[in-house]
């Protein structure tokens, strides 16, 4: 059997950010958001990236999308190096890789109609027949065709996320990157969007990289999971293994801290969620102040 094609090959990726001064006498040391990450994503994989806020998971995703230049290390997409490339040299990537973000209200231009929003990536790629394609995409994400002439604010959160997904799929990408696509949604709508993502991934044979803080969601969506903490991958394996038999103490604490209905029914109390996190840096102390928590 042929090995599946390697889509992403990330080697020793480091991403540092300068921080503003907080003292007149000392420089603030740079913040290392991604700290020597190696990973591979193969074709057809559903790759989940889990971590708490400030773990660097979103920065890593931005590097995969070439929206962020790494400080050092290499990101290869189908063998082509992305690090150090200019925007105009990334056309091939934009055609093949699309991103869905957490907050569709922030990622959809409020002044554009849905038709323009969905067609915009096609216009950028100078494709023709956009009108039919938009209708096709609306069907695919389960929105009525009449939505095309409306504005994003006229939709609910779940519907807006459908629009964002339709827009991402417009150029027929082979890779979909999703950054917390369901964390802002209500549970009943979350289930609808997760089902939709699953259908689309199967139907269009997409490779999915899915970033989330919620291990339960990632376990449901993904087949492979990497756990991130303070910029490093602490554990990497099949979704099932990570959820049921985590090896790293941090992953164990993370898995234990997630409240579930099943455990609640078996008499779990808040104290049973606590498991000592190896304390070289407890998440609370590691969390950077000044930085909004994700909602």
């Amino acid at each position, binding site marked *: 059997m042929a090995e599946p094609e390697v889509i992403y090959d990330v080697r020793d990726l480091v991403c540092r950010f300068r921080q503003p001064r907080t003292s007149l006498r000392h420089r603030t040391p740079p913040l290392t958001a991604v700290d020597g990450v190696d990973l591979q994503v193969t074709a057809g994989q559903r790759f989940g990236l889990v971590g708490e806020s400030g773990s660097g998971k979103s920065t890593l995703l931005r590097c995969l999308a070439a929206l962020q230049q790494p400080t050092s290390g290499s990101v290869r997409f189908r063998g082509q190096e992305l690090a150090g490339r200019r925007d105009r040299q990334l056309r091939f990537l934009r055609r093949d890789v699309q991103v869905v973000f957490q907050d569709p209200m922030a990622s959809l231009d409020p002044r554009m109609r849905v038709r323009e929003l969905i067609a915009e990536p096609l216009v950028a790629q100078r494709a023709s027949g956009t009108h039919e394609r938009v209708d096709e995409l609306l069907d695919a994400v389960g929105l009525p065709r009449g939505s095309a002439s409306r504005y994003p604010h006229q939709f*609910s959160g779940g519907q807006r996320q459908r629009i964002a997904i339709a827009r991402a799929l417009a150029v027929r990408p082979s890779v979909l990157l999703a950054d917390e696509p369901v964390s802002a949604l209500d549970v009943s709508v979350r289930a609808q969007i997760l089902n939709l993502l699953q259908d689309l991934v199967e139907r269009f044979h997409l490779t999915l990289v899915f970033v989330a803080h919620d291990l339960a969601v990632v376990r449901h969506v993904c087949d492979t999971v990497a756990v991130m903490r303070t910029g490093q991958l602490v554990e990497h394996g099949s979704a099932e293994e990570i959820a049921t038999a985590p090896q790293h103490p941090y992953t164990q604490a993370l898995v234990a801290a997630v409240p579930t209905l099943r455990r609640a029914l078996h008499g779990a109390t808040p104290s049973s969620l606590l498991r000592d996190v190896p304390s070289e840096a407890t998440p609370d*102390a590691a969390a950077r102040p000044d930085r909004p928590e994700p909602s």
Partner: protein
Amino acid sequence: MSADALAAAHPKDPTVSVLEVRDLTVVTGGHTLLEDVTFSLGPGERVGLIGESGSGKSLTALAVMGLLPEGLTATGTVQLRGVETDLLRIGERERSGLRGRRLGMVFQEPMTALNPLMRVGNQVAEVLRIHGTVDDREDATQRAQRLLADVELPDPGRIARRYPHQLSGGQRQRVMLAMALANGPDVLICDEPTTALDVTVQAQMLQLIAAGVADRTSGLLFISHDLPVVATVCERLLVMYGGRIVEAGPTEELLTRPRHPYTEGLLAASDLEAVDDQGRLPTIPGAVPPDGRFPSGCVFRNRCPRGDEACTVWPGWSGSDGDGVACWYPSEGRHG
């Protein structure tokens, strides 16, 4: 008679509810946002209020606290143990004497609830001094530090001198909890207290809330959209949709034998491990309508698999306050 004197006349009695909310209705300009919300809270009891955004959970909390925004009017009764007058009818002066002393609240976003210009230690001390719990400034500072230590903040002496923006989200939320618990309130209301927190920090916070109310035998009203969280913390649940309580019951019963189709849908959608043959999650069709656009009669009927003609009339409540359902076609359950 002042609220103080009333409270003194009623010593703490473990059999009397600390909070009784009856037929609470909130309206604004022709829209009814909350209708006939009825529940009670025993001393030391942990009650969860669950529902999706727009269901009226936070509004319930604000109405009880007397913090409704202008233009919204509340009717019904809200009775706090030891206060003879209905909280909806007392003046703002008396009410602010109760808030922070008998009624504590933790909000979702601590950054907007804390004063950004004041050191957090002083904010906790202020709650003690304003209500006359502690007169001496020095004493109040000491007590504030002890409260910060109680919520397991490392090095409370140092944290006390920090400003809110210098703390992490989890630390800020602990300061909020320390303030809410400072005067040993009869009722603690937590409105989505951990929604913005990471899971490991959330676990610590939930533990502190549970321990805090247990130590003070306060009644806890825990509001969240996250069913697994509420189920872990609370012994009794209220399910809210469209400004109404649609089902209530002990946590275990409600989770194992839900009667209202909305509760069933919420449960099914929350459990990411239960999928059908194609690996799909069960969903509730449609989305929560915006305020004032819920259907007449049963508020859930336009999303309900069992909705029919009968549902154009509100089914009314069957069962007791703490254990019942409002549905024409409840599932085969415990009763009704």
